[in-house]
C-alpha cells in the first residue's frame, strides 16, 4: 500500500512532467508565482516556478528515473521496518529536488539545494541504530554546508550586483555587469557546486554516503542530487561564459577530480564504493565539460549517466540483495550463473559507462572529449582520455570479479543466492534499454544520424528572457578530427574490455597483485588517506580548540576576569575590615587624622 502511494505519486509526477514537456516545446517556458516569500525594500523574493526547457529536462530525469527507483525500492526495502518512512523521505527528496530545478530564482534553488541535503542526511543515516551510518550522514550534511556557505555568499554578491535573485532579472543584466564581480560570483557558486556534486576537495562524503540503502545511492548520489551542481552551472551559463578564469577553475577541478577518484576506484573492493568513486569521477568529467563551455555536453552526460549509473547501482543492489547483504566483491564471483538478468543489465551498464560504441555513454563521453580537444587542446584531451581508460578498467574489473570466475563466498550465501523479484528487475531492464538508446538524444553532427543534436537544439530554445537558455556552441573541428578522436578512445575502451577479461574474468580468484597491498597500491587502496588528512586538518583541531576554548579561554580566561573582580572586591573589604578594631583610642586617632587631612583643603 505504502509502496503504491510512494511510487504512484512519482508516476503521476512523471506524467505531469511529460505534459509540461509538451507545453514548453509548443509555447515556451511556463512561469508562475505561488506566493510572496519575503521582500526587503526593492528585493522581492517569491516562491515562484519557472518550467523552461532546461528545468523540464531535469524534471524528466528526476521523475522518470525516480519512478523506476521507487518501484525497485518496493522490492528492495520489503523487509525493512522503516518501509513507510523510507518512501516518505524519498518523496520528500523528490519534492526538494523538483523545487531546486523548478525555481525561478536563486532562493528557490537554495531551498531545494538545502532540502536535498537534508533528505540526503536522513536517508544516508536511515538505519540509524548504527552510529557509523549516522556519522557518515553528518559528514555529508556538513560538507554540503561548507559548499552552501559559498553558494550563499555568491547569492549575496548577486543581490548586490544585479539587485535581484530572479533568473529573469539577473540574466537580463549580464551585458553591463562588472567582470570582476561576475568572476567572484561564479567562483562562489562553484564552491556550492563542489559541495553538492562532490568535487575535490569536498568529495569525501560521497563514498561514505554508501552507508545508505542502495536505492538511495542510486537516486540521490548518482542520478539527481549530485547533478544539482551541474544544473546550477548550466543554468548560469551566461555568467560563467563571461568569466574565463572561473571556467578555467571549473575545468581544472573537474579534470583532477575525474582522474584522481578514478585511480582510487581501481583498488576498492566494496561494490558500492567503486560505483561511488566512479560517480565522482564522472561528475568530474561533467564539470570538465562545463569548464570547456560545453554546457549541453555536460547535461547530456548527466542524462546518460543518470541512466547507466542508476542501473549500475540498482543492479549492485540486486547483487547485495541476492547475496544476503554482502558487499565485498572478493567474496563474490561467478554470479552470472545465479543472477542472469542482473548480470546482463550490469554488463550493459558497464559497457555504457566504458564507452562501448553506440551505447549512450559512448555518445555523451565522446562529445565531452571532442569539446575538450576543441577548447583546451591536446593535453587536456589526453588527460580526459586517461580518465576514460581508468573508468573502463575499474568498471570491467568490477564486472568480471563479481560475475565471472568461481564463487568465493560462503556455503550459506551460495544457497541463498537468487535472482531478484520482477518488481526489482523490471526497472533494471527499463534502465538498461535507456542506457542503450539514450545516446540518440544528442548524436553529434558529423555522424549524420537523424535527429542529431536534438538535445542541443532543445536547450537552445528561448527562455523566459527571450534569449536562448543554453546558446548553441559550435564545435569547430573537422569531421575527420572528430572521427579519429572518437576511434582512438573507442579502441582503447574495447582493448581494456578484452584485456581485463583475461586478467580478471577468466581466473578463479583475484590476481595476486590485487590481493597484495604495498606501496603505491596501498596508498590508492586507502583512498590516498584523504579522509585521514581532513580529520587531522579540520576535525581534530576543531575539537581540540573547542575543549581548549571552553576550559581555558572561557572558564579561566574571561570568566576569570569576572570572578577576579569579585575577588578583588572582597579582598578590599577584608582590608577595610581591619580598620575597625574596637579600640577607642584608635578611633579617636582616626578622627584626628581625618580632620587634619580635611584641613589640608584650606590650602587648595
Amino acid at each position, binding site marked *: 500500500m505504502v509502496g503504491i502511494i510512494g511510487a504512484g505519486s512519482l508516476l503521476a509526477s512523471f506524467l505531469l512532467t511529460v505534459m509540461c514537456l509538451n507545453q514548453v516545446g509548443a509555447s515556451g517556458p511556463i512561469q508562475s508565482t505561488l506566493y510572496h516569500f519575503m521582500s526587503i525594500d526593492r528585493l522581492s523574493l517569491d516562491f515562484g516556478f519557472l518550467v523552461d526547457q532546461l528545468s523540464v529536462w531535469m524534471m524528466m530525469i528526476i521523475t522518470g528515473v525516480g519512478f523506476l527507483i521507487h518501484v525497485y525500492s518496493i522490492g528492495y526495502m520489503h523487509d525493512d521496518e522503516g518501509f513507510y518512512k523510507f518512501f516518505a523521505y524519498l518523496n520528500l527528496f523528490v519534492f526538494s529536488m523538483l523545487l531546486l530545478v523548478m525555481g525561478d530564482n536563486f532562493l528557490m534553488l537554495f531551498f531545494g539545494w538545502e532540502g536535498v541535503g537534508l533528505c540526503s542526511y536522513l536517508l544516508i543515516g536511515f538505519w540509524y541504530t548504527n552510529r557509523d551510518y549516522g556519522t557518515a550522514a553528518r559528514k555529508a550534511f556538513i560538507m554540503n554546508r561548507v559548499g552552501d556557505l559559498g553558494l550563499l555568499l555568491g547569492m549575496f554578491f548577486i543581490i548586490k550586483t544585479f539587485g535581484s535573485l530572479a533568473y529573469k532579472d539577473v540574466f537580463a543584466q549580464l551585458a553591463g555587469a562588472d567582470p570582476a564581480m561576475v568572476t567572484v560570483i561564479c567562483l562562489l557558486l562553484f564552491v556550492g557546486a563542489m559541495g553538492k556534486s562532490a568535487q575535490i576537495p569536498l568529495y569525501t562524503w560521497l563514498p561514505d554516503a554508501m552507508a545508505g540503502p542502495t536505492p538511495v545511492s542510486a537516486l540521490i548520489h548518482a542520478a539527481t542530487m549530485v547533478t544539482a551542481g551541474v544544473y546550477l552551472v548550466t543554468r548560469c551559463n551566461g555568467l560563467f561564459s563571461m568569466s574565463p578564469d572561473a571556467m578555467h577553475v571549473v575545468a581544472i577541478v573537474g579534470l583532477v577530480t575525474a582522474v584522481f577518484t578514478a585511480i582510487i576506484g581501481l583498488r576498492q573492493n566494496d561494490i558500492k564504493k567503486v560505483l561511488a568513486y566512479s560517480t565522482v569521477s564522472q561528475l568530474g568529467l561533467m564539470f570538465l565539460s562545463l569548464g570547456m563551455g560545453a554546457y549541453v555536453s555536460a547535461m547530456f552526460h548527466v542524462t546518460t549517466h543518470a541512466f547507466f549509473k542508476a542501473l549500475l547501482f540498482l543492479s549492485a543492489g540486486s547483487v547485495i540483495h541476492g547475496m544476503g547483504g554482502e558487499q565485498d566483491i572478493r567474496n563474490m564471483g561467478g554470479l552470472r550463473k545465479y543472477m542472469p538478468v542482473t548480470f546482463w543489465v550490469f554488463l550493459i551498464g558497464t559497457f555504457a559507462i566504458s564507452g562501448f560504441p553506440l551505447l549512450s555513454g559512448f555518445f555523451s563521453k565522446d562529445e565531452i572529449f571532442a569539446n575538450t580537444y576543441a577548447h583546451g587542446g591536446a593535453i587536456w584531451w589526453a588527460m580526459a582520455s586517461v580518465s576514460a581508460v581508468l573508468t573502463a578498467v575499474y568498471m570491467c574489473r568490477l564486472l568480471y570479479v563479481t560475475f565471472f570466475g568461481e564463487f568465493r563466498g560462503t556455503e550459506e550465501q551460495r544457497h541463498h543466492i537468487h535472482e531478484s523479484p520482477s518488481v526489482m528487475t523490471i526497472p533494471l531492464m527499463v534502465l538498461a534499454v535507456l542506457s542503450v538508446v539514450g545516446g540518440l538524444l544528442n548524436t553529434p553532427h558529423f555522424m549524420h544520424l537523424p535527429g542529431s543534436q536534438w538535445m542541443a537544439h532543445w536547450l537552445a530554445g528561448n527562455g523566459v528572457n527571450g534569449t536562448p537558455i543554453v546558446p548553441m556552441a559550435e564545435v569547430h573541428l573537422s569531421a575527420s578530427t572528430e572521427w579519429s578522436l572518437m576511434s582512438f578512445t573507442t579502441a582503447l575502451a574495447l582493448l581494456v574490455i578484452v584485456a581485463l577479461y583475461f586478467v580478471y574474468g577468466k581466473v578463479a580468484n583475484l590476481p595476486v597483485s590485487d590481493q597484495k597491498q604495498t606501496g603505491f597500491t596501498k596508498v590508492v587502496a586507502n583512498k590516498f588517506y584523504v579522509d585521514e588528512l581532513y580529520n587531522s586538518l579540520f576535525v581534530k583541531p576543531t575539537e581540540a580548540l573547542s575543549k581548549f576554548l571552553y576550559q581555558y579561554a572561557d572558564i579561566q580566561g574571561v570568566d576569570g576576569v569576572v570572578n577576579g573582580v569579585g575577588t578583588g572586591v572582597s579582598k578590599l573589604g*577584608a582590608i577595610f575590615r581591619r580598620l575597625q578594631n574596637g579600640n577607642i583610642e584608635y578611633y579617636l586617632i582616626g578622627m584626628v587624622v581625618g*580632620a587634619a587631612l580635611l584641613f589640608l583643603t584650606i590650602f587648595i
Partner: protein
Amino acid sequence: MFAGLFGKRDLLLPVTLLGLAAALGVSAMSLSTGDAGWGTQYTSMFSFDKYAQSFTAITLTSVLLLAGMSSWGFRTLNSSLGDHYALILFSLCGAVCMFSFTNLVMLFIGIEILSIPLYVLAGSRRDDLASNEAALKYFLMGAFATGILLFGMTLVYGSTGTFNTAAIGAAVERGVASPGMLKMGILLLVVGLSFKVSAVPFHFWAPDVYQGSPNTVTAFMATAVKTAGFAAFYRLFSTSFLGVNEFWSVGIAAIAGLTMTLSNFTAIFQTEFKRMMAYSSISHAGYLMMAILVAGQPGSAGAILLYMLTYSIATICAFSAYIVVAEPNGDGSFAAFNGLSKKQPLVALVMALSMLSLAGIPPLAGFFGKYFLFSTVMQQYPWLVVIAVINSAVSVYYYLKVIIAMYFTKEENTYEVLIPSSIRWVMVAGVVIITLLTVLPGNIFGLI
C-alpha cells in the same frame, strides 16, 4: 514619664503613641495648609518653616512605627519603662530643634538634647557588657566631637560676628576679614557634624555602638538621629556657607566618596545582621553627603527628605523583622534567618522588601530615593555618581545575603519565630508606606 511614675505601665505606650500622633497631625496640617509656620520664635533662634515641618513629619512617622515596635522591644524592662519612653521623646525634641534652628546655639542645644538621652539609652541594658561598652564609646567620642563642634562654632562666630545662620550667610557672601578663621571653623563644623551622621573618617564609633545598643535603640539611632543629623547639616550649609562652597566641596566630596566605599566594602564581610546594618547605615550616610554638596540647588532638600523617609521606614521594618527572629533565639547572625520564608512568610516578605529598598532596586521606594539624590548631584559631580553607582552594586551583595538565607538556603534552623501583633501592625504599616512611596514618590519630593 509621669505615667511611668504612677506605675501605670499599660498606659505608657498608648500615651506615647497618642502624643506622637497628635504631633504628627499638627505638622501634617501645617504642611497642607502651606502655613509658613509659626514664624521665627524665641528671638529668631527657631523657625518652624516648611523644611522643618516636613522633616518633623517624617521623623514622627518613623518614631511612631518605632514606638509600636518598642512595645515588644522593651518588654523585658520593668521599672524604667517610662524613663525609656521619656528619653526617646526628649531626644526627639532635640531632633526638632535641629530641624528648625536659625541660630548656631540652637543647633548646638539641639544636638546635645538629641545625644545625651542616647548615651543613656545605649547603655540601658545594665547587665550587658556590650551595651555598656557602646554607651561609653559613644559618650567619649561624642564628647570629643562636641568639643570640636563648639570650637568650630566659635571660630565662625569670630570671623562673622554673629550666631544667626542667615546673618552668617550674608557675611560669608560679602567676604569676611579673616577667611582663614572662617574656613577653619567650617571644617571643624564639618568634622563635628560628620561624626553625628557617622561619615568616614569619623564613623568608627558607629559599628560598635550600633551593635552594642539594645535593638530598639539602634533602630532609633539609625533612623531618627541620622535624619536629624543630615537635616541639620543641610540646613546649616545651605543657609550659611553657600558663599564659599568651592572651598568645602572638596572635603565633603572626599568624605562622601570614602564613606560610601569603605562602608560598603567592609559590610561585605559581616556575618552579624546588626553590624551589617550599621555599615549599611554608614553607607547611606555616604550617599546623603552628596546632597550636601549641592546644597541650595532646587530639589536637593526634597531628595534628602524622600531618601530619609524611605531609608527610615525600610530600616525600621528590617529591624522589626530582626527583633522577632534574633532576640528570642539569641542569634543575630544571618544564619538565624534561614528558611524564614517557610516559617513566617510575612516577616520574610517584609524583610525582603526592606533589603531590596535599601539596595535601591526599582521599583521599590529606596530606588526613587537614590534616583532623586543622584539626579540632583549628577549635573555637577557625575563622577561621584559613578562611584555611588558602583557602591550600590556592591551593596546589593550583602543585602541579598539576608534574602538568600531566608528564601534559598537549604540549611534550616530550629528557631521559633512568633510575631506579636504590635510588630505585625508595624510591619504592615511599613509595607504600606513603602508601597505608597513606590507609586507616588513625587509627593514627598515636592514638599520642599
